[in-house]
């Protein structure tokens, strides 16, 4: 057994000739919370899908627990996915099922536990995210933060070894953000799992993660502990961490000369 539960080795991926990732190397040690950060559209979410085997790399490989993900058949991939839990950006709760049934869903699908035990487990998971009292609500009745917490309870329903979070803070108020940060850390440590958090919220992420990868232009632009990166003098990291408008990442989308563009009038 290696110390890293997930390893990404020289990974390249792209859609229709446009490469999104160009040779990415990352490793995720067991028991740690690791953040993948980068601007919008830098392919962070795609990385999670590559780890989950929903996409196949163009080159390189992703290994989960020593197994190369894209070489697995359907059954092996399903077996591998049972070790993973994923929290989607908007929660992705099943809208036709209640909160209780959403959390019970993976248990019903993958185990033949008696109903009484499923009930106990669902209550424990919901209690861990503080929503035991909301078990009879439907997903449409939940606020954004609550939906995210229910989805988190569902993601950890089968005690996965790897928990992946896709933008867990997007669109949340500061209190909910704090709650989610706290939960990610607590659940990770309580379950002895490894967490991979994809986000662009620097302040939140730096407050609780162990290690950070910065992705830019399809490559790992920088990596290190939050402390190291806060002090980094690399221009890109500096711009990102301090939220500066212009820098190595330009404010303007590539465009022809402004003056020339304006003078040309309607003749485009």
């Amino acid at each position, binding site marked *: 057994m290696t110390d890293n539960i997930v390893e990404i080795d020289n990974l390249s991926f792209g859609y229709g000739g446009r490469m999104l990732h160009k040779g990415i190397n990352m490793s995720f040690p067991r028991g740690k919370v690791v953040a993948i950060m980068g601007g919008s559209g830098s392919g962070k979410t795609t990385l999670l899908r590559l780890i989950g085997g*929903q996409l196949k790399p163009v080159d390189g490989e992703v290994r989960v627990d020593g197994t190369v993900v894209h070489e697995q058949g359907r059954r092996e991939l399903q077996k591998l996915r049972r070790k993973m839990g*994923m929290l989607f950006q908007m929660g992705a709760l099943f809208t036709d099922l209640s909160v209780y049934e959403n959390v019970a869903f993976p248990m019903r699908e993958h185990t033949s536990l008696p109903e009484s035990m499923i009930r106990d487990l669902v209550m424990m998971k919901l209690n861990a995210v503080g929503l035991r009292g909301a078990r009879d609500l439907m997903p449409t009745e939940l606020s954004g933060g609550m939906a995210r917490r229910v989805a988190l309870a569902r993601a950890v329903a089968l005690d996965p070894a790897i928990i992946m979070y896709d933008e867990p803070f997007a669109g949340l108020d500061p209190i909910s953000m704090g709650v989610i940060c706290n939960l990610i850390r607590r659940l990770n440590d309580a379950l002895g799992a490894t967490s991979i958090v994809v986000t662009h919220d620097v302040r939140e992420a730096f407050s609780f993660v162990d290690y950070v990868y910065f992705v830019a232009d399809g490559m790992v632009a920088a990596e290190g502990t939050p402390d190291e990166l806060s002090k980094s003098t690399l221009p890109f990291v500096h711009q990102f961490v301090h939220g500066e408008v212009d820098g190595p990442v330009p404010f303007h989308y590539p465009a022809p000369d402004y003056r020339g563009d304006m003078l040309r009038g309607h003749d485009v």
Partner: protein
Amino acid sequence: MSRLLSGFDSLLRGIGHRLVDQFWRLGSAARFFAYTLIYSGESLRRPNLVIREIYFTGVLSLIIIIVSAFFVGMVLGLQGYNTLQKYGSSEAIGVLVALSLVRELGPVVTALLFAGRAGTAITAQIGLMKATEQLSAMEMMAVSPIARVVAPRFWAGVISMPLLASLFSMIGILGGYLVAVPIIGVDGGAFWSQMQASVDFREDVMNGFIKSCVFGVACAMIALFEGYDAPPTADGVSRATTRTVVNSSLAVLGLDFVMTSFMIS
């Protein structure tokens, strides 16, 4: 001249592009159908899933089917009587109503209503499940969306359609009876006995039943594929829903012609 040529060139290219696109779609639809059949075993082993979907597609379509059937039957009674009485054979009204319903109108109108009522609901639901990442989430939970979401809905459609079509024919005949016998005053005995004598179980009833089963497969498959294949945006889902109605209707009418020509010959 060169402008004309380049216009012609881009027109040709456009047509070719669309054609190739359609072939791709046809291919992925066929693959989707095959997967649905392969995964059907898994979902049929859990009949609860199928029964739940029969409720949504079949039971909730009952009102529209019953009301439409009643009106179609009444109109058939009126129109049929109007024409038949010119030839002095208004007692044959029962045969006319029953044969038109059992052979054609029952299966076809039910399928068209089914596509509009249940097909659109299925497409929109699956399209939105895709747009809100519910299908991805299921996949990541090591649960196949085809086995869990698609196959139960497919079988629910295939089972519901013949039942709804039979009900349509039955209610339609009642509607026809109501207009012809108590209101117009055609002899009730002649209405039923002529019908009984002229409607053949194998030739008419069974053929109608076979048609409705085929329509069930076609409508359910089109609705499911359009939903599953829809771009995950508001625009994509709305276009997919429209395509479900258009394609299902065309498929039903086309298949009806083909099957009728085989059944009659």
